């Protein structure tokens, strides 16, 4: 009986371990989707309201879930005139500072970093063009990430369960 319960526990933990490994792939796709939404909102603010960047970022803070909320509030703080950073510098800084809270890959950050380079420093048409480019590239990455996440999470599920079963067989 004890053996039975023990093996069940091993199999379940294998399953959970597999899920956890697969989770970061799913999370990456979700985070990318959230960034696309944020950029979309920024685009609306800039094109229709000509909202000032700090105000627009403030709105993003209010509607974004974590870890994006943290990202944008840090960005907002970096824009404070006392620090003397341009929007670009503030953006790069926040990526370096809070990048660890995300499951994103280097290629994802690369797109975001490139987007930051023209932030706030051109007319609205240019701003919107840059936002569109960034959105498009993020969408491509997101699609790739989603495919990958389906494949990888399924794989990790198998790996987890099979490892659990394998361990049980070995122990018997």
């Amino acid at each position, binding site marked *: 009986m004890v053996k039975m319960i023990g093996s069940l526990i091993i199999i379940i933990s294998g399953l959970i371990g597999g899920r956890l490994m697969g989770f970061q792939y799913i999370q990456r796709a979700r985070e990318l989707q959230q960034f696309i939404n944020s950029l979309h909102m920024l685009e609306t603010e800039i094109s229709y309201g000509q909202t000032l960047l700090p105000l627009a970022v403030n709105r993003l803070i209010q509607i974004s879930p974590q870890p994006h909320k943290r990202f944008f509030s840090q960005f907002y703080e970096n824009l404070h005139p006392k620090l003397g950073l341009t929007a670009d510098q503030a953006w790069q800084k926040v990526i370096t500072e809070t990048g660890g809270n995300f499951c994103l890959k280097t290629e994802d950050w690369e797109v975001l970093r490139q987007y930051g380079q023209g932030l*706030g420093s051109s*007319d609205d048409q240019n701003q919107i063009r840059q936002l569109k480019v960034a959105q498009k590239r993020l969408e491509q990455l997101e699609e790739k990430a989603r495919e990958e996440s389906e494949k990888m999470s399924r794989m990790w599920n198998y790996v987890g369960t099979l490892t659990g079963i394998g361990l049980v067989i070995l122990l018997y």
Partner: protein
Amino acid sequence: MNRQKLADQIVKFLPPRLREYLLMLSDQDLERLQEIRLRVNRPLNLNFAAADLFLGRSGLTPDPLRGEVVRREDLEQAILFLSNHSLYALDEELRQGFITIPGGHRVGFVGHGVLKEGKIKQLKDFSGINIRITREVKGCADPILPFILKGQHDIHHTIIISPPRCGKTTLLREIISKLSDGFQGFSGFKIGVVDERSELAGSFQGIPRHHLGLRTDVLDHCPKTAGIYLLIRSMSPEIIATDEIGSSADVVAISEAVNAGIRLITTVHGRDIDELSRRPVLQDLLQSRIFTRYVILSDHRGAGTIEGIYDENLTQLSLLKNRSYQLSEKGRVNYG
């Protein structure tokens, strides 16, 4: 301007590299500071009431070689900070070549003009910035007010004549706020202000930064002519105030307002009445005798020197005939 104000209102818009230089200035210098000029590849230039100096590592100096040279990045950064990281929101301002920052200070810039159909569509590649520091001289209008008031609840049509940088706008602002707030034995007027260049109210993103009185409505960034008509129609003002009239359209709008029973206070560039009467557009205005008070300013005892106050017959009314005096804070008057 004190150190705190300078840091809060102006220095924060400059690139970090240049901030320390300005914070090095003595209180005395800050008091006299009028303009801060940044020009690409040229030394940081400060303009004081009586002197034009350069600022560098060793402080203020008349020697241009010892001034800190401004780089292109400095200027780009300053523009970004001035626009609050949002150059895209400044289309109109970039076309006009200036913006007004909190505190009512005026920042003008020059650069490479992008033209469309012969008009400046935008400026890019900025090469120079001029930060003009605005001062509020509270109470400076007090000695003038008795000359402007007419009876219990009326005022004279008044025009302030002055060359640039002699305190014309500051005086007008004070007159507006006093007449609007009212004072002992005198309730205020409803005043409409057409602030074409955002200078009187110092509006920044629609919010006036200068106190223009409790009963004052400000129409920001509107052409004078259209603005005067709009105010008459919509806000029923008793007085309309506007800065720097000069075109024939302005004159037409003014006559319109006068015929609608509205009192006027305005300013015009000029040295004296003679000089005005030589300008064709203003000649008619003078001859029509609409204005019954002429206040003439100069800077010969410092900004805000009253050269004289005249009525419609050009007789001097000033308390001290043929003697100029300088207006200063809290209604004090310096006779020099």
